[in-house]
């Protein structure tokens, strides 16, 4: 039995379904990200776990105990908010000690614990400061250890880095992961930022329109997306309309250029299906025993580590991310070039129609 079990969770607001058919089993110490665009239900799902929203249906069990309808102050779940939500009237130390005080833990032991937590986020001398005297990143660090002070069974983070600068976001991201692993804290992290989700998580839950699209490791989500939504939401993706030539042998064509996919599919010949291909799988030049596509360069943008080339094949546009090399010749718009990619690099998306 999993540590945190969520079964068939549902939430309706008026006639609107925010979350439906949400099933998830989280192991102790696992870092799970709920990933999706705004309005996909990820925050609602998190708020139901926290107890701020009452589910319309379904159950939530934590360590074998059902908590579906118990109030948030009796769940022993820590929460970190996007807006930090530190109590402005209290010092940093009092903020961290708030939960301890409520649990009637005061005196030396609690002082020691507060100091330990301040050191955990490398702010040992900020105890006497007030929240407004700290930067955003520091405030969020304090909010994190405030939530950890009560030794929660689960830590929930609701877009905790969205209000911060890019540089601080990356630093704090690493720190959250370090602390989470150090404490072996079961964590659920809500984000719309795929990079955050990919870099932090043990498993990612991709959500769309209130339902789970896919659950899997970052590697699996990125490389083996099971739905068209996941494939296009996580990372860049070329979706090419290809005509089935011989489905059983994985043969297709794109504007009369033949393509091979290593996995066979069940589809009638001469129908059109969607072929998915990550831009970074493409390389410049023709290669034997690989798929080759020839087209006209529409644009080439130098982005530093990569050069992003847009290739036009008839009315289909393909994006190719080529790795930068010092001796490379960057394709020029109007030029005709050939790009290649292995058979196993592309796959056919499940047809929705």
């Amino acid at each position, binding site marked *: 039995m999993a540590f945190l079990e969520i079964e068939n969770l549902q939430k309706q607001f008026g006639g609107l379904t925010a979350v439906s058919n949400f099933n998830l089993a989280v192991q102790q110490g696992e870092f799970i990200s709920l990933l999706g665009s705004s309005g996909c239900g990820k925050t609602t799902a998190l708020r139901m776990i926290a107890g701020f929203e009452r589910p319309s249906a379904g159950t939530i069990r934590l360590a074998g105990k059902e908590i579906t309808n118990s109030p948030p*102050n009796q*769940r022993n779940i820590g929460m970190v908010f*996007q807006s930090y939500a530190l109590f402005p009237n209290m*010092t940093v130390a009092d903020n961290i000690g*708030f939960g301890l005080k409520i*649990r009637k833990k005061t005196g030396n032991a609690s002082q020691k614990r507060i100091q330990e937590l301040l050191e955990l986020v490398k702010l040992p001398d900020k105890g006497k400061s007030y929240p407004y005297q700290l930067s955003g990143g520091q405030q969020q660090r304090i*909010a994190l250890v405030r939530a950890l002070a009560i030794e929660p069974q689960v830590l929930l983070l609701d877009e905790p880095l969205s209000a911060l600068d890019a540089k601080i976001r990356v630093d704090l991201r690493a720190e959250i992961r370090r602390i989470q692993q150090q404490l072996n804290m079961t964590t659920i992290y809500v984000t719309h930022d795929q990079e955050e989700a990919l870099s932090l998580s043990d498993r990612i839950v991709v959500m769309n329109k209130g339902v789970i699209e896919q659950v899997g490791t970052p590697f699996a989500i990125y490389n083996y997306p099971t739905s068209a939504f996941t494939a296009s939401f996580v990372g860049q993706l070329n979706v090419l309309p290809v005509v089935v030539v011989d489905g059983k042998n994985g043969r297709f064509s794109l504007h009369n250029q033949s393509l091979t996919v290593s996995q066979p599919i069940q589809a009638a010949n001469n129908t059109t299906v969607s072929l998915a291909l990550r831009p970074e799988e493409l390389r410049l030049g023709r290669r034997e025993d690989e798929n080759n596509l020839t087209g006209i360069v529409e644009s080439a943008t130098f982005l530093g580590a990569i050069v992003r080339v847009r290739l036009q094949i008839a009315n289909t546009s393909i994006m190719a991310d080529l790795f930068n090399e010092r001796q490379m010749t960057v394709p020029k718009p109007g030029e005709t070039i050939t790009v290649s990619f292995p058979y196993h690099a592309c796959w056919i998306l499940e047809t929705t129609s």
Partner: protein
Amino acid sequence: MKKGSLWSWVWILLGVLYFFLPLLATLQFSLKAERGVYGFKAYELVLGDPQFVETFVFSIEIAVLTIVCSLLLIVPTVYWVHLRLPQIRPILEFIAFLPFVLPAVVLVFGLIRIYSRPPFALTNAVWSTNLLLVGAYMSLALPYMYRSVDTGLRAIDVRTLTEAAQSLGASWATILWRVIFPNLRTALLSGAFLTFAIVVGEYTIAAFLARPMYGPYLAGLVRNKAYEPAALSILTFGLTWGIMGIVQWLTYRAPGATQVTAGPR
């Protein structure tokens, strides 16, 4: 000096003259109780009058009671509306606006009509009349108290702070007492101060309910005496400014008490 700034000084000077000349005149008049010499005779008479002390202390008691009751009623109510029932805010605003358009004399007649006969014969005893007085003052002070609390709650991220406290295990009472009230300190102080000023200076309701308040006492004095009312006015002004000073001091004393929003939303 630039032309624009010269004109602004002229206007400020005119404003100062407009406000302070009557005050200066009153002060000068209040010092002339004895013919031919300046002295504090009028002040001695006022402060020596047992009725002054009695009405003043009684007014302060009523004011404090009004403030405490108002806070206990309004803070949790407005907090709850902010948190859970934002859709009824217009209704609350309308109610809070009513005392402005309803003259005190109408209010007190209504109160007397309803509460001087069974089943609510409150005017029969002194303590229950005092209760009625506090109730009336709570209505009078409602617009100011509501505005202050509402503005204060808007300045903080009530919802997220509440949820943060809840997730840390806090009960509703703890949240109100340890998180909401302290963060509203400035707002509550200004609301309390306005209420105090209204109650201490109020005449109509106190007079009709025949309670020995400071307002009716001052009015009576104006009718019968010449110099003492001037002295009283000056004293009252001094008191008002003193309280304002205290509010300012309390507001800026502790750095953490400064109103800071909870961060970007």
